[in-house]
């Protein structure tokens, strides 16, 4: 279980607890965090579950696979801090993680 904070583009924050084994995306959807569309349900095919991870957390997350990296390259709002939240499996190690949700996934 990890306590994770999602910050909306407008500034409001949602701190939620996510069970180990679920993806960050699933945790956000179950807790009705706005701005995570997740159109493909976690199949790494839609890039509508993107979040920004601050640099101090980047190395502590499971590394990107090539498909995630390639999806992000074609996302309109992606930056070096972007991750697809469906590709990040939650574990205790993520406790305290803070991510930002983009204003729009499209």
């Amino acid at each position, binding site marked *: 279980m990890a306590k994770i904070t999602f910050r909306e583009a407008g500034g409001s924050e949602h701190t939620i607890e996510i069970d180990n084994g679920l993806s960050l995306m699933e945790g956000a*959807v179950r807790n009705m965090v706005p701005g995570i569309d997740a159109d493909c349900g976690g199949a790494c095919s839609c890039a509508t579950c993107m979040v920004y991870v601050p640099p101090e957390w980047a190395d502590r997350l499971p590394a990107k696979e*090539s498909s995630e990296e390639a999806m992000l390259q074609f996302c309109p709002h992606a930056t070096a801090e972007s991750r697809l939240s469906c590709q990040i499996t939650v574990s205790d190690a993520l406790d305290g993680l803070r991510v930002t949700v983009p204003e729009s996934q499209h």
Partner: protein
Amino acid sequence: MNDPLIIIGAGQAADQIVASLAQNGYKAPIVVIGEEPHPPYQRPPLSKKFLAGEMAVDRLYLKPAAFYDKAGASLMLDRRVTNIDRATRTVVTGTDARLNYATLVIATGSRPRRIALPGTDLDGVLYLRTIADVQAIHSRFQPGKRLVIVGGGYIGLELAAVAVKHGLDVTVLEQVPRLMARGVGPVVSNFYARLHARHGVKVHLSTAVTGFEGAGRVERVACADSHHAADLVVIGVGAVPNVELAAQAGLAVDDGIVVDDQCRTADPAVYAIGDCASQMQPLAGRRLRLESVDNALSQAKAAAAAICGRPLPPPQTPWFWSDQYNVKLQMAGLSAGHDEAVVRGDPESGTSFAVFYLRDARLIAVDAVNRVPEFMASRQLIAQAARPPADRLRNEGIAMKDICG
């Protein structure tokens, strides 16, 4: 006018229209009537991770219960709508209860095409569409069992991949000479035939099934000149739209329920979205019914915008995916009517490649096998009506990012 907006069907499209209505500030009550006992859930994992046992059932559910409450939507599950009366704006449910609607959204999806052959009623002859179907398959899904899959479409092939990994003895019988013939081009079909053969699936093409045999439960599948022993048969030969309610209510049906660009039928109070709707597809230049998550979501968003008097979201390139083994197939656009197919990469010996489909030099579709950049770039290029030169598409030395320009 306090009658609710009623949605018939509680699937992928229903879930999205509830979300989009809420996002657009829709305030009137919403009632979602679904015949399955589950809240709206995603079907793609039914032939992938959920079938493989890697995912609990609650992970299929698209939203938590609180989401529907917050959106002002009540779910009436395990209830089938049996009639629509447009004159009085009512729907009748199985228990003979009548409910009035102000606006009606038909999101009834599709169901597996049944085949009219002897023996389909035998025990062990199954289909794959719902959670209940997967549970029935699971009860017979033991290593060593002989599974015969009728139909080499993407659902049957995803099932084959999961089953052979699980230690079942798997045979696929496909009537036409190639796999996934309705969805992808021949180069991709041939790649998948080799992929499945390599994993130990027995793929028989151009093989028409003539019936199922057994004493009470299925034991063999009969074809014109062969027999295949079976402990379990799954039939996956396409889907037919659930349009009977609409047709009985006098709405136009042409394969799917006929709708305009707002997903509205000829009755301004009635919309249809998802697998059951037939809508003009600009890329194909004609009205079509699409069966995909993307289409269910796009149509739900368009209908929600129309209902709320908002501008329609800009049209997107249709897309689809299929996971078999560790190979990801991603498709964008609609390839029907192409006059040129351009291959990038080596489908014969490689593990990744893409096929681009062009019509009058315009890119209209892509089949990308383990090729995310080709898929993502094509989604943009297709939406822009771009005419990327075939020799650049073919040239692996030029990055897709650069072709996008």
